[in-house]
């Protein structure tokens, strides 16, 4: 089975199956968009929580940590109920669109990025704290400086977010509906083939998705390594 899956994956790629490329394209669009949004929100939140001690901070940290356990299906349902035509945002007509999928994934991934980046930034801030106090940096200045100086470590956090986005199916299938040519992405296609019993095709699609992830990771890591080589130790 596994070998036939590999063969199938290679065939699919070589034959340049247009449906496959459409699905890959949408997967990338949805995942990358939601990762970028999650990074915007998650890194800001993480840096905000890391850079000062205010009342209730510990509570928010715990909440965000707990939100990492939010099941995708539940996130999907929440978003579904909000944007369903009978929901409060139904008039926007977002249900079963890529936009809805991006919203759901962003909600899912932001806590992960926020919790992990808070930890990374807090560790660095432990080192920088007194110096920053002395310079009387404003909070945004502190956040910006820390995010910049921690960028190499934060890349791993971003990759974890990307991994979650690329592999996620529970939320996108509810709000996207897995509609052919409209909202079908790699993971929903894999789920579909699994339910059709076409396990070889499901595995083949999985392999293609993984190769894609590998490609992106190689790209980002080599950028990272060459940047680090001009080392700001």
């Amino acid at each position, binding site marked *: 089975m596994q070998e036939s899956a590999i063969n199938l994956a290679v065939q699919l790629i070589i034959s340049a199956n247009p449906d496959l490329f459409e699905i890959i394209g949408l997967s990338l669009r949805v995942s990358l968009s939601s990762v970028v949004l999650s990074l915007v929100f998650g890194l800001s939140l993480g840096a905000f929580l890391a850079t000062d001690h205010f009342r209730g901070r510990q509570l928010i940290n715990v909440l965000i940590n707990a939100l990492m356990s939010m099941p995708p299906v539940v996130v999907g349902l929440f978003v579904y109920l909000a944007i*369903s*035509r*009978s*929901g409060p945002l*139904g008039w926007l*007509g977002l*249900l*079963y669109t890529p936009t809805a999928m991006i919203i759901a994934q962003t909600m899912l991934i932001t806590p992960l990025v926020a919790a992990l980046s808070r930890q990374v930034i807090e560790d660095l801030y432990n080192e920088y704290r007194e110096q920053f106090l002395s310079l009387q940096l404003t909070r945004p200045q502190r956040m910006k400086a820390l995010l910049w100086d921690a960028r190499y470590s934060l890349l791993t956090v971003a990759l974890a977010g990307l991994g979650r986005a690329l592999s996620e199916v529970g939320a996108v299938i509810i709000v996207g*509906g*897995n*509609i*052919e040519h*409209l909202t079908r992405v790699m993971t929903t296609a894999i789920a*579909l083939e*699994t*339910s*059709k*019993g*076409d*396990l*070889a*095709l499901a595995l083949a699609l999985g392999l293609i998705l993984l190769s894609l992830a590998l490609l992106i990771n190689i790209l980002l890591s080599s950028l990272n390594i060459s940047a680090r080589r001009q080392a700001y130790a």
Partner: protein
Amino acid sequence: VADSKQILVQSTTSTANSGFYKYLLPMFETQTGIKVNVVAVGTGQAIRNARNCDADVLLVHAKAAEDAFVADGFGVERFDLMYNDFVIIGPAGDPANVSKQSDIHNALKNISTVNALFASRGDNSGTHKKEQSLWHAININTEAVKPSWYRSTGSGMGATINTAIGLGAYTLTDRATWISFKNKDDFKIQFQGDPKLFNQYGVTLVNPEKCPSVSQHSAQQFIDWLLSKKTQQSIAAFAVDGEQLFYPNAK
């Protein structure tokens, strides 16, 4: 957005997974220019979504639930579209000797007496409801008693078949899903042909009065087209591996 050139169909999975829409919809789309988007989910979820107005057309196979949908004012009218039948699939060895039975009641009785594993969808889908009514008819209460050989998978048809195959368990499935299913392993249809296994598909227009967002015109056009003589013939002509999957019966 009413009456856009797109309509949304909430559908059962068996029609989608068998490739039925891939075969049928392009004909409609070229004729009318109306794009049909299909969301294939469990029957329960499909009806729930339609109740939330997230559909123009409902196409499922759970007559009682569909009638309730119409009665509650969410659907305009339900039409019979086509039918096929349920079958019992099981491992090649047929440990419960199901294939030799003359009717479904005996077949199920056999399963229970030899304690052969049986995988149930357990998800209140049309298939699950049918299965429950069959057990009920032979006075075996799988819900309250939950015999050890009875495994409720709480999953869709495909996942349940995968589970049944993994367990070596019998299960009830609609013929369309089974014929187009790829992971058959050593499984075969072990029982079929009892009229009690009749499986009726229906189509319903979501009520524009309840749901103003319904593309009433396009959706009605789609339903009319489905029920038309020519389309009914096309449905009859749809086959996988040389086997007909659905039998049109629109009145």
